[in-house]
């Protein structure tokens, strides 16, 4: 780039300052967790991660993701289709309601769920009569994780749907394709990248959620503790080894997420570039 020569004077100091900020704020702290996790050798790390409570936390985190992510994906695609393809009074309200979890502290979301599904909550009596436990058990954790990650798929898929329009879908329909075929053959391939991005963000949030799950689950070790809760609990119980190795496990999951995000982001940009060209 043919930037004026004088600006070069600031280039290196600025680069240095930025790298220093990122190193002190993000890179060194994350590196430190890896160091601490393996500080006492691989054996100690393995013992910590293979302890029953730790394994259970990993399993529960995975289970919650396996339920909440598909649910939110279906919801996200459905709402995006409705908002992009239909105009109706109250559309803005639906749009705004979907975004609500972004504006609410996760702790507050957890609290609000307790007020509906807890023992003294709105549905508390009814649920107790039917022998359903939501709060302090897996359904509550799934609901909390799903609630906080609700907006991500919609936010990624809706703009793509609005951009691609409906010409291709109309063409397919006039050629006799049913709605399912149209969705599978036309709509889905078009929204694929945005959907991948949204689902990845959802997965990261679901697996990492702390505040909402902490309130709803009661954090019972070996029972309702997801990995983030287990990490915090281990620090409180002066068992940092378990916390650090658990954090490393979640960091590795985050690394996968990050790779998917970076790749699909680049692809998304390419796609946008093509659409504009």
């Amino acid at each position, binding site marked *: 780039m*043919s*930037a004026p020569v*004088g*600006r070069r004077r600031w280039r290196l100091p*600025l*680069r240095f300052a*930025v790298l220093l*900020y*990122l190193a002190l*704020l*993000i890179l060194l*702290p*994350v590196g430190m*967790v890896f*160091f*601490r996790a393996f500080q006492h050798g691989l054996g100690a790390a393995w013992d910590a991660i293979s302890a029953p409570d730790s394994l259970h936390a990993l399993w529960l985190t995975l289970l919650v993701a396996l339920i909440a992510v598909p649910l939110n994906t279906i919801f996200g695609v*459905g*709402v995006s289709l409705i908002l992009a393809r*239909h*105009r*109706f009074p*109250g559309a803005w309200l639906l749009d705004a*309601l979907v975004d609500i979890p972004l504006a609410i*502290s*996760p*702790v*507050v979301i*957890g*609290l*609000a*769920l*307790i*007020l509906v599904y807890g023992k*003294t909550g*709105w549905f508390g009596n009814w649920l107790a009569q039917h022998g359903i436990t939501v709060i302090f058990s897996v359904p509550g954790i799934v*609901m909390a994780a*799903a*609630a906080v990650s*609700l907006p991500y798929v919609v936010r990624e898929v809706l*703009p793509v749907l609005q951009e691609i329009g409906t010409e291709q879908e*109309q063409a397919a*329909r*006039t050629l006799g394709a*049913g*709605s399912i075929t149209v969705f599978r053959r036309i709509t889905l391939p078009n929204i694929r990248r945005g959907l991948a991005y949204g689902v990845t963000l959802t997965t*990261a949030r679901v697996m*990492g959620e702390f*505040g909402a799950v*902490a309130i709803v689950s009661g954090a019972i070790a070996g029972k309702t503790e997801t990995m*983030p*809760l287990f990490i*915090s609990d281990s*620090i409180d119980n002066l068992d940092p080894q378990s916390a*650090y190795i658990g*954090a490393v496990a*979640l*960091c590795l999951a*985050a690394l996968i*997420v*990050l790779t998917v995000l970076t790749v699909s982001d680049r692809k998304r940009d390419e796609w946008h570039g093509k659409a504009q060209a």
Partner: protein
Amino acid sequence: MTTGVADPGQVSGGARPGDPRPGRARRGLIPHVTPSPALARAGKLTARIGGPALLVTYLSLLVILPVAALVTNAFSGGWSTFWAAVSSPESVSALQLTLALSAIVAVVNSIAGLAIAWVLVRDDFRGKALISAVIDLPFALPTVVAGLTLLALYGPSSPFHVNLAGTRLGVAAALLFVTLPFCVRSVQPVLAELDAEIEEAAASLGATHRQVLLRVVLPSLLPSALAGAGLAFARAVGEFGSIVLISGNLPFKTQVASSWIYDLFQNDELPQASAVSIVLVLIALIVLVAIGWARRRFDITEQV
């Protein structure tokens, strides 16, 4: 084709008076999709009502009902109880600290975000792609892990002998960590689209570097930087996971609003917890609505 267009309005209008949404959506508005006549069949019709109904139920169970319960619960003891809960010394202190820290963090990260975006867009060096990925790390990393990383480096056993545990600076560091991507990603695309030729034109007309920066570059980045700062602020106001490990949750010192709500919940003071929650939600909502309005007003593309 014509029957196809006319079809949905008639069918949906007559078939389900109880559910006006999709029916009205179609009438007299742009015919987005032209359904095949097959779509009018009864089975598919139930599917078309059933789908939206299920989605709204899901949204109600997870968001609408809980928020309604929160409001109801906060005012269950009347206005005076609500006010007592919100104006208790702990609540005032926690809310003040939350607002002050969030504002400081938003400002600091906006400046850092501008610098980082500048380096990412205008600078070039080996490993730049890696730096770009690092920016997104706080999005991908669970908040508790973010808190733990800071505790590992700046906690009681810090290799630098910097102990931020139980200090406001520690809380600020956690907030800086989790809000950084908002501040970078909101500015970066705008800076990338900015035409370097305009700057060169200004420079060739005799503007100094300072003038180019202050009169040309910064004004065009300001709206998106403010949007990023607003998002960071809204996020910081409700942040909990990254703070719990490093704050020590000391009342009147490091206890932020979300931690205070958590404490109230633990002590079974649900109406009080709901009341403080309402204030917190309102603050974040006001900021987000303002950003939404500003985005439409100044036509800022949504990036984060």
